């Protein structure tokens, strides 16, 4: 007989549900254990210094790494949102508090065109909006997205406190570097303010001849012996000196192992990028010109007072000898108002004529390269040679070692036929050539610096040194451009109070 349900049911204890159930027992105990684990972990997070590492959304970048473990409060004010896009983070008092936390104790940053910006606009900018932290040790905090710049620059008129000048680059609406989004050509390259008459084309020819036929080309043995060592490895089979870029343009920072990249005929192969080497040192007469342009013992760079002091020490005979050498009978037109050397010497002896005024008349002396000064105390006009051409941007030569000088400075490599004026025999158009800006414009930059990532990857197939075109590749935010761009050096974008920082590090290491 088959056992029925009732019969099976009566086998079961009436209060079976009160009996021990291992599943319920295990669930309760494990849940209790989970509760303890959760509470313990939470307490450890809140109280332990190592707990901060667990809460951190990522490793801090190198400059802030000292606070990676224990320095949350250095930046995070309690219950104050640090991100501007956080809930309540856009309140002015929060932004101000957060910015004070960065700017003052550690950083000393300047504003950004404060005088030209509407009141209150810059107050809404917080440090963390652009400088995003917790993205790893190698994160470069200066790498700011273009969108942070274009928030204002795409519609610059809305934040500028004065009418937009149509010819001003800074006030053009710019979204990014691409041609389609309005970055104009570099205003700093519109003209060369320099006053020196110098022909790159002439100086890049063997022997640097002034005449097209090269008759006056210089050989190594024609320059003073003390300079020959500098050029002896640059002579050709005819003993003519072939200058290169690096003969006059020295790097501001030495890059060992990468010498000679500026050779005119070199094919750049360097793959390194050095942000240390930004610019080239200024050309110095005594180092780079004196070998050929001998002043016969007269110092270069004297002003009028210094010059007169110097000639006081000279006897009329000495002066005459100097002038004879400079002003030969072969050049009668170059003499001042047709005066004979003898008369000039007599005037000098009586100190009636200033020597500097005479020297400025001949192309064999100061006037060869300089414009006369309009200042009473100076002999020659300021050279206005620019060391840094891009006024609002930072160009780093060290990051461009993979391209040759000629790629960007093609104007300096013009052929003689373009430079020599055959109408004036034996003369270059150095004056005209000097007014040419020998730096390629933005179009050249865009050949490698490509905004669109897709296009960049496509271009990479044929050009290995394609690069990004972010605003921060060239521009810095925390420094208004100086008034005198000719004398500008390299500006540290974020000045850190290193003394405080080092003291902090020392205190962190202390037991």
């Amino acid at each position, binding site marked *: 007989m088959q056992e029925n349900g009732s019969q099976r049911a009566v086998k079961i204890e009436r209060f079976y549900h009160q009996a021990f159930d291992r599943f319920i027992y295990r669930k309760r105990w494990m849940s209790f254990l989970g509760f303890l684990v959760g509470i313990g972990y939470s307490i450890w997070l809140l109280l332990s210094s190592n707990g901060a590492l*667990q809460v951190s*959304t990522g490793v801090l970048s190198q400059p802030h790494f000292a606070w990676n473990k224990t320095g949350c409060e250095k930046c995070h004010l309690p219950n104050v949102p640090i991100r501007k896009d956080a809930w309540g983070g856009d309140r002015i008092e929060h932004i101000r508090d957060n910015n004070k936390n960065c700017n003052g104790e550690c950083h000393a940053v300047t504003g950004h065109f404060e005088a030209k910006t509407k009141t209150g606009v810059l107050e809404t900018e917080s440090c963390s909006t652009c400088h995003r932290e917790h993205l790893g040790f190698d994160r470069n905090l200066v790498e700011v997205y273009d969108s942070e710049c274009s928030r204002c620059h795409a519609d610059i008129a809305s934040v500028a406190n004065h009418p937009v000048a149509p010819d001003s680059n800074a006030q053009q609406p710019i979204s990014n570097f691409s041609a389609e989004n309005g970055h104009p050509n570099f205003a700093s390259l519109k003209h060369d303010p320099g006053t020196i008459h110098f022909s790159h084309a002439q100086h890049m020819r063997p022997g640097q001849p002034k005449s097209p036929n090269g008759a006056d080309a210089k050989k190594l043995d024609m320059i003073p012996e003390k300079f020959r060592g500098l050029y002896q490895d640059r002579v050709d089979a005819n003993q003519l000196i072939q200058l290169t870029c690096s003969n006059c343009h020295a790097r501001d920072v030495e890059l060992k192992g990468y010498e000679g990249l500026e050779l005119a005929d070199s094919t750049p192969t360097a793959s390194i990028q050095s942000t240390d080497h930004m610019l080239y040192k200024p050309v110095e007469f005594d180092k780079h010109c004196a070998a050929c342009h001998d002043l016969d013992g007269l110092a270069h760079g004297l002003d009028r007072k210094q010059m007169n002091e110097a000639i006081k020490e000279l006897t009329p005979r000495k002066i005459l000898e100097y002038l004879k050498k400079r002003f030969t009978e072969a050049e009668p037109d170059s003499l001042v108002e047709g005066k004979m050397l003898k008369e000039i010497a007599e005037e000098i002896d009586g100190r009636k004529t200033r020597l500097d005024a005479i020297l400025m008349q001949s192309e064999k002396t100061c006037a060869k390269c300089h414009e006369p000064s309009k200042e009473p105390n100076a002999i020659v006009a300021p050279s206005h040679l620019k060391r840094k051409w891009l006024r609002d941007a930072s160009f780093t030569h060290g990051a461009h070692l993979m391209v040759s000088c000629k790629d960007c400075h093609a104007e300096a490599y013009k052929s003689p036929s373009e430079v020599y004026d055959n109408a004036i025999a034996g003369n270059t158009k150095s004056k005209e050539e000097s007014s040419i800006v020998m730096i390629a414009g933005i179009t050249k930059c865009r050949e490698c610096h490509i905004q669109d990532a897709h296009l960049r990857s496509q271009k990479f197939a044929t050009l290995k040194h394609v690069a990004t075109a972010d605003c921060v590749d060239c521009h810095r935010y925390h420094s208004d451009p100086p008034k005198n761009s000719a004398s500008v050096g390299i500006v540290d974008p974020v000045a850190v109070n290193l003394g405080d920082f080092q003291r902090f590090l020392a205190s962190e290491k202390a037991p």
Partner: protein
Amino acid sequence: MHLGSIVLAVAMIAAGAFWQAWHSHQADRSPTGSSWPGIVIGSVAAGIILFELLLWPRKWLRRFRLFPTKYWMVAHIWLGLATGPLAFIHSGYRLGGTFSTTLMVLLLFVLLSGIYGWVIQMVLPRWMLGNLPYETITGQIDDVSIQAALNARRMLTVAYGPKPEGLQKLPNLDGFVSDMSGVVTVRQGRQEVRAIVIGAVQRRDTKGLHIEIDSGNEFNEEDGRELWGQYATVIEPFMLRGIPLSYGEATSPQAQKETSPKSPISTRQKMIDWFSMLRDSCSSSTRTIVNHLEKLTEQRLQYDAQRRAQSWLHGWIAFHASASVVLGVLLVAHIVLALKYM
């Protein structure tokens, strides 16, 4: 029943993703948990997790009939599933630091264990219903197995007399039985048949189970010795394996453990073959008795399968619940820390 919760869950996810993306686009920033939509979406996810955890206290308050359990469970499943995507949207599609990663991993574990439990609870009960007809309450398996052994002993005792001397000692089951019955004549329709009355007579069944025996069959002593012998050495140790019982001098679960794996009836196929041999070695009069012993053994095999199935069916809850508790506690810490360091 499910549709409403599914629509609500999908709507929340879609709305959250759209809002976060729209806000991110407007602000021209990558989405984050601290943004306005990030906080709202995170709060919704946290609220759902709190609701999920209320399943436990709800059991304590079930006498108040708050809400039908089936609807609560449907909401528990679908809204719970929505917490994963919502938390991911809240986080700005990033894992963040170790702590937030731990939270996400915990949430993922809770979700996966819940999905596993949901699937297994849909599949296994159906399988058990079809394949384990002897299924009983899992916690009562030992008790029911002892009763089955008592029934078998009673049946053999009624048929062949007490266990002969010299056979393997059986555990003491005196505490589990109060009555015994004998061979009686019972009416089956218009017929009267002889039957051995056994059953859980110690409980509420005063009638007991009737095992019919052929009229005219006589139980001989030789069969009795053979059946008692096989019962004592093979059948009962298998039926009572794993149950700590007194063998008089000492409890010997170890001995049972050792015999169980070697039992010739440890699988269904082995059992069928073994009982077939047992039938061959006894006279035909034992058929009813042997059939019933085989049925009791089959019952025990099904109880083993039931136990395994129950482990699969309920074992996950401990992990799901404990991980949920950890998640709930850490969620509070996350909220405190996020508000402090936002």
